[in-house]
């Protein structure tokens, strides 16, 4: 409680100064300046690379992206390799849960190889997600876009899978090479590869 009071008093005294989120000191005033390399320097941007097509990977990317925008953090999503399925018009609503090699499914490995099991598990998971107000893929893309996030496709992966821009979600911000992706880095950015 004491700390909170102190930081509030401090805040009042230095009204309008930009504060370090970690140490609650002003960034620019000489008397109490926080180290500019402070590990608590605020997170300003997330660059999220989605490289897999299974539902759990794709949704991890969406939820982190949406959560970042909700906190005022900028977001670039970059879809590469099998992750392109998530922005492919034909495939985005048919993503599946991976059963084989996924111990998190809590079932014998052999069950995963039977036809129809993946669809069944996916159906059950989608139903539960809907109950929790987790949107389907196309709506999630709309939400990320409407909230000011950017969506990019990987140029090389598109060439590999023979995909054209018109095969993808209409509202993508562009097709990038890996170099162009890195150019979008600014101080305060974290890059996450899923």
């Amino acid at each position, binding site marked *: *409680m004491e700390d909170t009071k102190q930081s509030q008093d401090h805040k009042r005294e230095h009204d309008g100064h930009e504060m370090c989120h970690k140490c609650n000191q002003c960034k620019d005033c000489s008397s109490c300046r926080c180290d500019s390399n402070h590990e608590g320097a605020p997170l300003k941007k997330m660059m999220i690379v989605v490289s897999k097509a299974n539902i759990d990977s794709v949704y991890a990317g969406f*939820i982190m992206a*949406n*959560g970042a925008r*909700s906190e*005022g953090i900028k977001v670039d999503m970059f879809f590469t390799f099998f992750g392109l399925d998530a922005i492919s018009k034909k495939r985005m609503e048919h993503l599946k849960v991976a059963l084989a090699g996924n111990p998190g499914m809590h079932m014998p490995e052999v069950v995963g190889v039977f036809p129809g099991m993946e669809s069944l598990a996916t159906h059950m998971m989608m139903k539960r997600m809907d109950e929790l*107000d987790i949107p389907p893929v196309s709506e999630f893309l709309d939400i990320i876009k409407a*909230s000011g996030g950017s969506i990019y496709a990987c140029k090389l992966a598109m060439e590999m899978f023979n995909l054209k821009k018109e095969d993808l979600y209409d509202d993508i911000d562009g097709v990038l090479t890996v170099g162009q992706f890195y150019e979008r880095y600014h101080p305060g950015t974290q890059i996450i590869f899923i």
Partner: protein
Amino acid sequence: MNKTINGHDVDVDAEGYLTDMEQWNREIAQEIAKELDIDELTDKHWEVIDWLREQKSQGIELNIRKVGNSGVTDIKEFYQLFPGGPLKNASKIAGLNKPTSCL
């Protein structure tokens, strides 16, 4: 803890969110909005604030998607009305607790 906002004594948490939504009024909302760099609350802001409070009073946990489907505003406009974290900031202005949803 206690805080005086625009002459009204209210209970707030460490981040300044009201802990009792019944202590809220429009003058308090205006003052919190100013703290969040929103100089003027327009009719649209009030519509959203009223909608959020109504949902909350029904015990509904709020998230961005629900706001987008509210019919009161859409997600794009919501981000423009309450920049820098719309659900967080709108909830604070509306006298509600900090949103706990991951959506």
